[in-house]
């Protein structure tokens, strides 16, 4: 056996258990709730805090956070497909594009729906697209499904490039923003009220009255309201994710991923559950695409390239497939790191690639592995310890 691979996970598992015991106070329910609330508040306040180190220089931090939240949302959706149901979907960008294009068509290109109507329409259309793609293809397994979905992503891109009704190469412009809340008179700052940002360079006068974000105005300049919108969607989706996963549905997905034939024999209609996972993943991807369209105001086929699919899959794998928070963190990192290290200019993708490779070597199960992977590692460590003892004795 390869000693290296034997050692790496066990050390990890020991590290994890000591980490876990150090944070055992987290098992306390009120503490847990307080921490969750704190985390949510920090997440919403993050773009206003201007925290040193993590705030990106040279790129609008609100925009970066919007991307990060959108990618986290995408990773949640793809995690249902890859992490829960075990279906390798390499064409997820197709659903992202479907959501964005549905929004573009309904609000700008052919109709003039308001965004808030187009959003649910985009979700439903993408879900139906997922069902249409899934119904024939989910009968093939493993690698074949990956190839079929890869093709789907490309087909969507080629269709949008060539069909005039979809805007062809010119894309779709003038996609409206979500409605504002509060006054929106021209020439003055809108919103119900204005929230000042913090500025640490002028310490101790850290409240920066010159830089405010109106609540709530969706404009082309300030991306923060868009970030809040996506963040809200993210939290709603993750609650839904928790509820559905901790039920018969989640068990059926897991059983199907583990052993499809055995699951079927145990009375799980595996095809139906795979299709459900596929459609849910598609719907969430479509939702994210719709947010992207309204934020950018303009979409073109050039956005929805195949590498985006790879990035989405990378996000899920980096974070830890099967663990929703891990996947979300993966999404955030994938969006955030390249922008944070923009200072390295041309080298940032190289650095990002290196980081991915190192992760693949030292932590192949992702930063936050799913519960099953953690438990398996702990068991491995325990066995190794026992074996070590017998050898010593």
């Amino acid at each position, binding site marked *: 056996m390869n000693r290296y691979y034997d050692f790496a996970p066990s050390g990890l598992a020991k590290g994890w258990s000591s980490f876990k015991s150090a944070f055992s106070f987290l098992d306390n329910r009120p503490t847990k709730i307080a921490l969750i609330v704190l985390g949510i508040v920090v997440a919403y306040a993050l773009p206003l805090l201007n925290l040193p180190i993590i705030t990106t220089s040279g790129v609008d931090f609100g925009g970066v956070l919007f991307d990060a939240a959108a990618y986290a949302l995408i990773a949640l959706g793809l995690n249902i497909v890859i992490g829960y149901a075990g279906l390798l979907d390499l064409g997820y960008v197709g659903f992202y594009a479907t959501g964005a294009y549905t929004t573009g068509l309904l609000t700008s290109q052919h109709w003039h729906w308001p965004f808030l109507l187009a959003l649910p329409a985009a979700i439903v259309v993408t879900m139906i697209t997922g069902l249409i793609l899934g119904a024939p293809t989910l009968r093939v397994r493993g690698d074949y499904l990956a190839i079929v979905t890869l093709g789907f992503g490309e087909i969507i891109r080629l269709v949008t490039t060539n069909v005039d009704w979809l805007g062809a190469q010119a894309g779709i412009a003038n996609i409206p923003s979500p409605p504002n809340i509060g006054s929106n008179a021209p020439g003055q700052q809108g919103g119900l009220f204005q929230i000042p940002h913090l500025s640490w360079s002028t310490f101790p006068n850290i409240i920066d009255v010159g830089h405010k974000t109106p609540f709530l105005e969706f404009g082309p300049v300030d991306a923060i309201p868009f970030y809040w919108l996506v963040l809200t969607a993210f939290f709603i989706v993750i609650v839904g994710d928790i509820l559905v996963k901790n039920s018969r549905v989640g068990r059926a997905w897991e059983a199907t991923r583990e*052993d499809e034939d055995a699951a079927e*024999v*145990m009375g799980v209609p595996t095809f139906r559950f795979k299709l*459900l996972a596929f459609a849910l993943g598609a719907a969430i991807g479509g939702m994210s695409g719709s947010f992207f369209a309204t934020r950018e105001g303009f979409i073109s086929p050039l956005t929805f390239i195949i590498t985006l699919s790879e990035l989405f899959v990378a996000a899920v794998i980096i974070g830890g497939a099967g663990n929703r928070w891990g996947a979300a963190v993966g999404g955030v990192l994938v969006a955030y790191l390249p922008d944070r290290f923009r200072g390295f200019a041309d080298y940032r993708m190289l650095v990002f690639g290196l980081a991915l490779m190192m992760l693949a070597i030292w932590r192949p199960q992702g930063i936050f592995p799913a519960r099953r*992977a953690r438990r398996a590692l702990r068991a491995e460590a325990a066995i190794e310890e026992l074996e070590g003892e017998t050898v010593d004795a």
Partner: protein
Amino acid sequence: MPEPTSPTTTDARRSLLEVDDVTIRFGGVTAMDGVTFDIKEGEILGLIGPNGAGKTTCFNVMTGVYQATSGQIRFDGQVLHKIQRYKITRLGIARTFQNIRLFKSMTALENVMVGADAHSKVGFFRALFRTPMHRKTESESKARALELLKFVGVDGRADELAANLSYGDQRRLEIARAMATNPKLLCLDEPAAGFNPAEKQRLMELIRKVREQGYTVLLIEHDMRLVMGVTDRIVVLEFGRKIAEGSPAEIRDNPAVIAAYLGVEEDDDAAS
């Protein structure tokens, strides 16, 4: 629940499963050739035969993995033909696997709960909105799963990952998982494979206990002592044909069986 059956009264009972002149061909190979037998309600039927006799094929055609080339299988009055496998499970046929096929990354409890979910009507929306029905079936599934874990003797390790259980516990967990689907007929495919004599003894007791609960059991097994000790009736297959059928005592004295099977038992065991 039907009363436990004694071997002498089985013939008077209703047939639960009827295998009627079933033939299966894979290309030029005839895996089952006009096999006819039935399983009566409440009995333990042993299906034996040398390696390659068609036992597992028979099993697979009953559980919908293969379709019969000709002939019919009727379960509880219904013809099983082109019915999806999960529906066959819902009709009431459950099985274990010769090579253990648990959901390894799920806990023992979750494994059994998957089985208990077989008749659940909870889908996406009921789970998402946490309807009263979801809560009810969830707690019922859990209670039933825990009860079954206790029944097969794997309780106390309910939260252990299935992959981390000992070999014997994994085999017993498979039985619990199959029982959780609430079957009328429980099919055990070589449940004693890899067991030592003490474990086989325990398994025999477990199978008897299962029958006492009112289940009908089909047992495919290599181990002669186990089959003779626990079954009410035995069907012997050889090269895809049924060569004998009867009580354990009759089978033991049947010259065709002795020639085909018992006579080579030692070699057979050594080979497997």
